[in-house]
Structures are given as structure tokens and as C-alpha cells.
């Protein structure tokens, strides 16, 4: 097989991990909330999904339903994290950055606790469901057909999010809330409700990324340990894609390729690279993000800037 094609085919599923986190974060940021808890939320999503899989092991539930239930559990886990974050930042108006970082620390730690607990208590039993996440017609590991259910789910979610944001009244209202909450409030939009719902649904979507990474992309017990690092890349991807979910589909695959560049580029170019140079290549996604930030900041095009109300708590003018 063409090594380049193989490279792309491996990058797509990895990219979907970013895509989940990125789509979720875009929805949250469009409501004016910078959720740095995304890495932690993705971890929690993985843990919740795996825990549900473990509980369903040995029951008579059909495989399709097992997949759906575990996805729902990951989603709900994310929503709960999003609800805590929203309560702190929307209702109590806590600093968004501090709250988000706390959510990440909490999520990563809790995930370690849950995953270790499961490991000590019957091993890595949840991995039995790995095949359920594939379509029955998936044969070879090196073809598009091998892409699992959640790869398509990620694409669908991103497209739906893009449609909602640009073409519907709900999307218009959500963008107004993130751009200028006072204006949105003045025309009768329920700012608090929009912020809560967008943040919670966004967190739920991001959480799916964790489950996807463990059960589809990595398929190993150790996988949960790398979710946090990928979560930060998802946050960076939001900037890279200029807050547009449909661009993030391409962006996520590109990020997947860049992330794998360390191991793939040398084989592709048939050169010998010192093993110590690999981390340098792994920096590529971040370097690209910085370049995008510089380019968009210089161009100052208003459409490419973050939502104007991002990071600012909204106080209704009490007079």
C-alpha cells in the first residue's frame, strides 16, 4: 500500500479525536465561554463510556445498543462536567480560565482513579467491546472501511453544528450571545439559558472524543493517559479553524497528520531520523496554531477573530 495513503488513513481517525473536542469547544466559545476544561472533559467521557461498557459486559444487550448506551454515558458525563463549569462561570461568574483549568485537573485525576479502579477489579474488561465500534463490513485495517461508527458520528456532529450556527435562528442567537450578550439580552434572548445549553452540549460532544480515542483509535488500556495532551490540541484546533466547525473537519485531519509526523515523515521520505528528534516534529501542530494566530491577528479581519464576548462574564446592567 502507498505509504502516503496509509499515513492519511491513520490520521483520519486520530483527527476525529480532535474534531470531537474542537466542535464541542467551538459551541462553548460561541456562547462566550472559553472552556479550558476540555481535556479533562474528554478524559471523563472516556472513563464514563468505559465504565458503562464494563457494566454491560456479559448481559444480553445487543452490540449496537451497547455502543449507543456507552456513547450516551460519555455524553452525559461530559454534560455533567459542562454543567459544573457553567454553574461556576455563568451563574457565579467565576474566572473562566481558572475554572477551566480546575475542570481539567479534576477530570484527568478522576479518570485515572476510575480507570485504575477498573483495572484492579477484573482487568481491562471493557476492551471486549472494541469490535462493536466497527461496522460489520470492516475487513482490512488499512482501508476507509475500517473507520468505525464514531468517525462518522464526529463528521455528522461537526456538519450539524456548522449548519446550526450559520443557518438557523438558534445559531444566530447563540452567536449574538457570544458576541454581545447585552444586545442579545435587550432583544429578549435568554442569555443564561443559551450559555448553559451551549456549554453543556459542547462539553458532551467533547466527551465523546475521549471514548472514541480509547475504544476506536487506540484500543488499549493505557490509552486514557494520552487523552489530556490530545485535548489541548483540540483547544488549539479551535483557534486554527477560526471558530468554524466545517473547517475543523479538514483541520482535525491535518492536525492528525502533523501529530503523527514524528513517526511517519521519516519512513515516508525514507530518511533516518534520530529518535530524540521525534518530539520536535510533534510540536508541529502547536507551531502551526501559532502561525495561524499571527496571520489572523495581523490581517485583523473581523470574521476571523474570536467571539467578542469570549472570556467575559455577563452582568446584566442593574440600574
Amino acid at each position, binding site marked *: 500500500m502507498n505509504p502516503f495513503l496509509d499515513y492519511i488513513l491513520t490520521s483520519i481517525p486520530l483527527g476525529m479525536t480532535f474534531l470531537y473536542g474542537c466542535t464541542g469547544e467551538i459551541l462553548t466559545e460561541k456562547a462566550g465561554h472559553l472552556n479550558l476544561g476540555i481535556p479533562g472533559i474528554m478524559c471523563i467521557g472516556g472513563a464514563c463510556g468505559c465504565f458503562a461498557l464494563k457494566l454491560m459486559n456479559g448481559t444480553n444487550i445487543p452490540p449496537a445498543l451497547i455502543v449507543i448506551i456507552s456513547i450516551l454515558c460519555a455524553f452525559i458525563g461530559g454534560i455533567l462536567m459542562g454543567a459544573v463549569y457553567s454553574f461556576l462561570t455563568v451563574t457565579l461568574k467565576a474566572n473562566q480560565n481558572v475554572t477551566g483549568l480546575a475542570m481539567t485537573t479534576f477530570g484527568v485525576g478522576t479518570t485515572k482513579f476510575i480507570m485504575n479502579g477498573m483495572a484492579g477489579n477484573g482487568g481491562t474488561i471493557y476492551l471486549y467491546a472494541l469490535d462493536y465500534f466497527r461496522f460489520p463490513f470492516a475487513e482490512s485495517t488499512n482501508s476507509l472501511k475500517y473507520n468505525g461508527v464514531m468517525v462518522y458520528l464526529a463528521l455528522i456532529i461537526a456538519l450539524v453544528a456548522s449548519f446550526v450556527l450559520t443557518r438557523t435562528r438558534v445559531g*444566530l442567537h447563540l*452567536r*449574538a450571545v457570544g*458576541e454581545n450578550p447585552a444586545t*442579545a439580552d*435587550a432583544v429578549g*434572548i435568554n442569555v443564561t439559558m443559551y450559555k448553559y445549553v451551549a456549554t453543556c452540549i459542547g462539553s458532551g460532544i467533547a466527551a465523546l472524543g475521549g471514548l472514541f480515542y480509547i475504544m476506536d483509535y487506540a484500543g488499549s488500556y493505557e490509552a486514557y493517559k494520552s487523552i489530556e495532551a490530545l485535548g489541548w490540541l483540540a483547544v488549539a484546533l479551535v483557534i486554527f479553524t477560526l471558530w468554524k466547525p466545517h473547517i475543523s473537519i479538514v483541520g482535525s485531519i491535518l492536525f492528525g497528520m502533523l501529530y503523527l509526523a514524528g513517526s511517519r515523515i521519516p519512513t515516508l521520505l525514507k530518511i533516518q531520523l534520530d529518535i530524540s528528534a521525534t518530539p520536535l516534529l510533534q510540536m508541529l501542530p502547536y507551531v502551526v496554531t501559532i502561525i495561524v494566530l499571527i496571520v489572523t491577528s495581523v490581517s485583523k479581519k*473581523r*470574521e476571523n477573530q474570536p467571539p*467578542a464576548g469570549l472570556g467575559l462574564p455577563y452582568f446584566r446592567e442593574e440600574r
Partner: protein
Amino acid sequence: MSKPVALELKNVSKYFGSLAANKNVDLTVYRGEILAILGENGCGKTTLMNMIAGIYYPDSGSISVDGQEVVIRSPKDAFRHGIGMIHQHFKLVDLFTAAENIVLGVKNGQRYNIKEVNRKVQELADKYGFNVDPKKKIYEMSVSEKQTVEILKVLYRGADILILDEPSAVLTPQETDKLFDVLRRMREDGKSILIITHKLHEVLSISDRVAVLRKGEHIATVDTATTTASALTEMMVGKKVELNIKRPEPKNTCDRLEVQGLNMVDAEGIKVLDNISFTARAGEILGIAGIAGSGQRELLESIAGLCHPVTGKIIYHNPKTGESEDLRDKDPVAIRELGVRLSFVPEDRLGMGLVGNMDIVDNMMLRSYRKGHSIFVDRKKPGDLAKKIVEELEVATPSTKTPVRRLSGGNVQKVLVGREIAASPTVLMAAYPVRGLDINSSYTIYDLLTEQKEKGVSVIFVGEDLDVLVELCDRILVVCAGRITGILDGRNTTKEEIGLLMTKTETSAETEKKEVTDNENA
């Protein structure tokens, strides 16, 4: 009048704390008329309109629309009764197009289709003669276009009673004329228009009737056709109130600050200072009167070195060395290094004057932290100063370690004025130093300013209460739309005279325009 009544207010009152913003106001608005609401700053015009638009809720009294008594608790309620307000500060999402802003928040049960909205907005604009592109983004628009969007937003929601809060404040005379044409067309369409303003010539040119408010009370509603500018001014400013502020005769006056031909434009290219020239003398209080936003803030900030005029000179005569320096284009540090002792009490106390989260001592240090050569700051002297100010000015505070933010407005102002005076200035500028203060605190501030004047300081006082200006100041500079329209002797002037000068420039702009057209015709 045979026209049907659209809106009726009976005995409406609104209090903020113990302060009456509106007291027993009666107002009637007919269908198909333009009613001007006239009054000075802080006379309760905007509060009254906000009650109709659902932003405030009246403490007492009733509001009826089409003869039916209604309860308006939110802007949404107001829209339900066909009332829409266009605020002075636009509420628009910059990144959205005109049509997107107009449709925002409208729930009419139809599917959201931006093309349909674009078409409807265009239709509406054509009907009343607005010039607007529904697909244009707000951030690409001029101020007058943004205002058009705001008006369309209200019309799109089906309002037939429109309230405009000082619509001409941000417009050029030509744009204002255009707006007035549109308003007249809306009147012909049977809409009722309330227009808040303090520009007399506008009142006379557009309105059918005028309601005059003063200090929260409704003075009279008169037919525009039967009134004159001077009659309206008299109603607006009212009779003179004796305040008994001490005003000693100025002694040993000499020129301290000479401002020559200052010009400045703001970010949108509008002239905010137009050829300002005056002299501030040591040992006297120079008052600056004018409608809010006539360039007072820019003038003081230019002198303080916070913003930079395009042309002109700010000459400072140093009393110690006898030298004269031009302060224009120098920043505050450079001004201080020249040995100029300038104190500035800005309008925005907690934004520009003090740091709200820091205590009184730390706020004192904002002026003195550069002193001393050690890497450690000296908290002792500022601490002593803080104690002195708290004692002498009777600042009500638990201790000097209390964050300034927690003090009441009057006490915050005392801290700020105390600090500025402690720097023993040669020029003291105070912008609205008594805004929001109770009577006693206000008199403390007046006495402090007078005390400084007697010490030979050149005091510049920007005020809004004409009674205070007339009793406190030795000379009064009247500004209007960035121009000086008169310099009066505080002892021999009247409120009416100031009031007329405050609204003067607009008429002269119109005569200028007339001259231009005359020239073109010739």
C-alpha cells in the same frame, strides 16, 4: 386636537433611593405626531422614556396605550404594545449584517430564512426612505447607518410608538436633516414619535408639540408653532435657586494656562474640539458649562496629557521659574518632569482616578510611587497622608486599609480630591466632581475648590448644574459641540444666558449651511 390618543402617562413617578428622577409626570402622545421631550442633563427625560420602553418600572402612576391601561415590565412588554426605543448607545452585534441584527430575537413562528429577512428589511427601508443595505456588516457602517438599523429594528417588530433618545447627538447636520425627513414620513404614516433632545432649534424644526421637563417634573407641554426658543429656555432652566456658596473675590490673578486654537478629531473623524482658545488664571475658578459630551472631557484630557489634539498650543506659565512651556503632545510623566504641577479629578472616578480594589493608602501611592530610590516602596508617607485626608475631609471609612470600591460615591470623591490637592497643584482640574454626591459632600467639595483658589491655584471646574456654576465660578466658559460659544463673568450672568449659549452652535451650523447654499445659488 382631533387625533386619537396613542399613549398617556398619568402621575408617573420614579425614585432612585431618595432622589426623585420623575415626580408626578403627566404626558399625552397622539397618533401621527412628533412630540419633543426637552430638558437639561439629569432632568429625568431618559428615565421617563425608559419607563415607557420597559427598562425601568414606575414607582407610581399609570401608563395607557390606546386608552387601555397597560403594565410594561420589560422591553418585550413594550414591544407587545407597539412601543420601541432607539437608545443613544446602539445595541448591535458588530459582526452581524443589518438584517441579522434586525431579526435577532424575533420569534414569529416562521422558519429562519435570511433571504426573506433581507427582502422584508429592504421593503421597510424603501417605504420610509431609509438608505441601508441589509447585507452590510455593522462594523463597516457609519454611525448614522447604525442608527438607521436601530430604527429599522424597532419598525420590523411592528412598533408604532417610537422613542428616540437624542438621535442627532451622533449625526452631522446633513445626516440629521435626512433623519428628520424620515421621521416626518413616519408621522404621516400615523406613527407617534417621541424625541428626546436638548437642542432647541431641532425642537422647533421637527416637533408638533414640546414637553418640557425640569428636575424630574413636567413643567408644560406647548404647541411648537406658538412658542419661541427663549420661552422654552426659560421653562428649561427655571428660576434661579440661591445656594449660598462662598465666593471670595479673586486676588493676585495672573495667567497660568493658556490654551490656543486647540483642534481634535475622534476615532470616527468627528471634530470634538474646534478651535478652543482660553486662558485659565491663577487664583480663580474657571467654570466650563455645556451639554454632556460637548468636548469637556477631551479638553481636560488634552491638558492633562492623556490625549493629543491635532493642532493648537497649551502654554503653561510656571510660577516658580517664570518660564512658559507648551504641554501639547507630552504625556503625564513628561508634564510632571517639566515641573508642572497639574492635578486632575476625572469624571470617571473609579476608572481613571482611583483603583477600586486597592485601599486608600495604595491609592495615595499612585501619585508618589516614583519617589525614593529604594526598590521597596515607602508606605509610611502615603499612609500618613491617607490618615490626614480621612480626618480632615471626614471620609466615612472603617480604616485607611478599606478598598476604595466599598466606599460611597461621596467618600470616593473626597479621597480623590484630597489626593489631588495634597500634591499642592498649580492647576487643578475637576470634571463633574459633585456628580452623585449628596448636598453636604457637594459643599465640602465646593469649599475645597474655593480654598485652592484662595491659595493661588488655577481651578478649572466642569459642571452640569447651572446654579452651582453661576455661584461658584469667577468666569464661565460655555462650550457647545466642541466650540466655545461664550466666556461669561460668573458674577454678572444668568442661567438663561448660559442655557442659550449651550445650545447655540447648531443654529450657527445651519446658518452656515444656508450661506453655502446661498453661495451655490449665486
